[in-house]
């Protein structure tokens, strides 16, 4: 672990940056596909923070949680893409604001 010693601060900074990018995408994008992708970015940002922290303290837990997140993300994408297909079929659009059926 000599040559490549990245400080934890930097890892967390990148992780936060990724999380904010994902969050902004979630808030700004209207296309459901992009929203799902933003969600993935946020999940991976969290996973990166875990891995970084695990490496910093020399613990395997971080990587274990990363595996868990990876699985959850895969399952989420599977369900999410299924929903996207249904929405596309029912509303003929992927624009989330147009698919809105709630009053308010």
């Amino acid at each position, binding site marked *: 672990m000599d040559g490549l010693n990245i400080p934890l601060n930097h890892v967390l900074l990148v992780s936060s940056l990724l999380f904010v990018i994902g*969050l902004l995408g*979630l*808030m*700004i994008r*209207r296309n459901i596909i992009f929203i799902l992708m933003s969600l993935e970015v946020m999940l991976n940002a969290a996973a990166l923070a875990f891995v970084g922290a695990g490496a910093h303290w020399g613990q395997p837990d971080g990587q274990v949680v990363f595996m868990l997140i990876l699985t959850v993300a895969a399952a989420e994408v599977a369900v999410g893409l299924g929903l996207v297909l249904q929405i596309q079929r029912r509303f003929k659009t992927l624009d*989330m*604001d147009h698919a*809105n*059926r*709630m*009053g*308010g």
Partner: protein
Amino acid sequence: MRELIWLIPLIPLLSSVTLMLSSGKFPRLLIGLLGVGSVGSAALLTLALGLDFMANPEVLQLTLWTWMQVGSFAPGVAFYFDGLTLVMMSVITGVGFLIHLFSTEFMEDDVSYARYFAYLNMFVAAMLVLVMADNLLLLYLGWEGVGVCSYLLVGFWYQNSANGQAARKAFIVTRIGDTAMALGLLLLFTELGTLNIQSMVGAANESWQVGDTLPLIACLLLLGGAVGKSAQLPLHTWLPDAMAGPTPVSALIHAATMVTAGVYLIARTHGLFLLAPTAMLVVAIIGITTSLIAAFTALMQSDIKRILAYSTISQIGYMFLALGVGAWTAGIFHLMTHAFFKALLFLGSGAIIHCLHHEHNIFKMGGLRSKMPVTFWSFMIGSAALAALPMTSGFFSKDQILLEAYQFPDIGPWLWFAGLCGALLTAMYSFRLVFVVFFGQVKTKPDKDTGWRMALPLSVLCGLSLVGGYFIIPVESVFPMSTGTHPAHWVEYVSISVPLVGLLLAYLIFQSGQLRVDGLVNSAIGKIMRQFWLSGWGIDWLYERLFVRPYYAFASLLKAEPVDAVYGLVVTFNEALNGWLSQSQTGRMRWYITSMVAGLVVLVAVALQLSPEAI
């Protein structure tokens, strides 16, 4: 025999309840028999009781049961029977019976025949309780009972809203006096510890001196009640309006019995008033002022019943004058004779109204002398007694009042003189009525004459009005003897001659026309005075502006519920908040996410701000 005294108010009460429960399903004959018979049997019992009392004048105190017991306060439903009670009971049941009999003919075409007799019987029962009560609380029960019956009967023809207005006025104005009286009762109880009239007067004489402040306040409060009930200044305005009720009601309630309840109250508590000479002076001054004001007003009226109403106010003023100068016996004597001749006059006017298609205006009557002879003679005798022409009943009682007023220290002669002016006016207005209604041209033809049920009460009351002055009322043991000496003879001669002058003046002005007053009446000042007197010295006008309108204005202000508006603000604020928040319920997912993030940021920032050591 005497122990059966409780039957006397009970019989009319039972009859009243029966009639109320019948809901008008009884045949008319049965209603009449119940209504008249109950009061008639009460009158017979009173007569028997009176004969018994004459033979053996012994005061009876009968406690039926204890009304309520709260600590030392235990008023009983108890009757006290002495000469004064006997006089009042005789007037109520005797005159009441005649008026009930008269009513059967007067009201024969009315749809609410049963309701009428139910109210009238209840009135008799309540009035009997009033005069028979041995404590002021039971008296107050009767006092309010007659007030309610008066309200119900003034507004008897409630389909006309003006009658309802008159009934409310009568009730509310007397209520002002009743409130004062209730305060007086509370004061007397807290100071003397009892409301039993006899022991209360005894306790007052032990603990209070003549001229103390407390008896003065108590007497003035009681006087407030008396003034309201007896329609004296300043609470007299309800009586002329109360003429909206059926005429026999006016005869019974607003002439013979209820309006004299105030006189009875003061006479009954005279032991208290003797402790407060100032209060007695107030009574005398209220009496004589009312008497004069009402007499002037009566002279200008054209409604036959309003003339008699103002005349009643004026005559009760004489009774108050008598009470105020300590002429207790004369006051009660005038109460009795007045009950006779005023009931006679009211029933006479009822007969005219009944036979003349409900005509009230005396200038549309005329020449009724030969058409309605019984009524004519009733009015002649009644007016003679009212004007106190010599040898009639009114003469004896009013003469006695005036002579005793003359002997009152300091202002006695002035009271006497004012009383004489009132007597002159009384003679003028009463014979103006007779001359206008019964002489001259026939203006409205009566479609019938009185039947026997009207003629009989009129005849009996005629007799009583003539010979009533020779009755000796058994109240020597009730009141202290008057100690005054007999005044000079000229005083007596003047007192006798003044009503005759009034009669002569009325004859010259209203009958022969030899004395022309048109010029005086039509002059500028004459017109103003005429209008002023016609409106009852503008007192109604004044009260309308002073009390009624501000009250209505206040009521209409409250109608908008300004207090609720404060609580309404809370509601409005919540509704605004709700509307504002529901704006955020847009249904846009992205908006929700953004809000969540913003909220999270705020929360985290706050958390960091509050606990910096967590960083």
